[in-house]
């Protein structure tokens, strides 16, 4: 009964995107093995699309509502990974890999910002143990379940006819759109240089200085000779 309801809901959602009188294969048709290979691939791709889309939206909601900044960044990474999955299901594998790389870099930078944020507030507020372990364990379970679903559901995407699109994209990137790519690289280089200059510039935002933050950045003096003398000798 529940499976039938889920099937009807999915069938209704999928029917919204029907184009040019295209018909979805009925479920009994699939069970009897009478559906064509293309129809089976369509069902697999649709299920993967729904899986990635639901996880992306859920992670996005949790990223916005998270009180802990690190949890928000982790859920953003999960949402971005699922967005990359959606892009992969759409047939743009190159763009999906680019998205994964870019958002991993984004998550790393933001996590560094979160660490600095907590270090800056360490002197003014009591530190509370954030449940990062549970959140990252949850993310690991979700990603493992999605990986298992991708393996169980037919992994061949419906738009596999565009498998050679990566070559086409690189041809376009370094050919007709080469100047745009060069300008984008210059923008990124300018941003890196500007970020470095802003980071080392004193008196930004007219502040008086954050002693707790400065103390957190200074490495503690470690007397290596003294440590070596106190080490137990064998």
């Amino acid at each position, binding site marked *: 009964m529940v499976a039938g309801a889920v099937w009807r809901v999915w069938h209704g959602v999928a029917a919204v995107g029907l184009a040019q009188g295209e018909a979805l294969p009925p479920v009994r048709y699939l069970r009897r093995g009478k559906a064509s290979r293309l129809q089976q691939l369509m069902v697999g791709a649709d299920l993967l699309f729904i899986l990635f889309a639901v996880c992306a939206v859920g992670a996005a909601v949790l990223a916005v509502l998270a009180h802990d900044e690190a949890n928000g960044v982790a859920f953003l990474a999960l949402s971005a990974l699922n967005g990359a999955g959606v892009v992969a299901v759409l047939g743009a594998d190159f*763009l999906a890999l680019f998205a994964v790389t870019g958002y991993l870099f984004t998550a790393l930078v933001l996590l560094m910002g979160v660490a600095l944020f907590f270090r800056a507030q360490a002197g003014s507020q009591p530190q509370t143990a954030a449940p990062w372990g549970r959140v990252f364990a949850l993310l690991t379970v979700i990603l493992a379940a999605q990986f298992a679903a991708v393996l169980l559901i037919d992994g061949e995407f419906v738009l596999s006819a565009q498998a050679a699109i990566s070559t086409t994209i690189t041809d376009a990137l370094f050919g007709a759109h080469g100047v745009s790519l060069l300008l984008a690289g210059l923008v990124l280089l300018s941003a890196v240089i500007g970020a470095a200059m802003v980071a080392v510039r004193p008196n930004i935002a007219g502040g008086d200085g954050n002693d707790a933050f400065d103390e957190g950045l200074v490495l503690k003096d470690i007397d290596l000779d003294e440590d070596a003398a106190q080490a137990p000798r064998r």
Partner: protein
Amino acid sequence: MTLGSGFLVLAAVLFVIGLLGALLSRDRPIALIVSVHLIVLAAVLNFAGFAVVHDNVTGHVFAVLAFVVSLAHVVLLGGLLFGVLRNNESTSLDDIDNLRG
């Protein structure tokens, strides 16, 4: 099929979530960055989806360029956040509205 129009719905939902998050995170700069990235993700989904539907590579190229601009945004805001934290104890967006070069 679902892929034909599903990406539009997904991108719209992500855009609305990001927009609401950006409006509601007045005192949390990292939450603001997260929300802006959700908006960028929605735009990239639209670029990729339309590029696939219309069989046009230009959409993929624009998505790549959007990603690069998004990375530049993160790098610049990371440096800005570092500089603000170095000089101010508060990181509330309302408290650092007196940025000057």
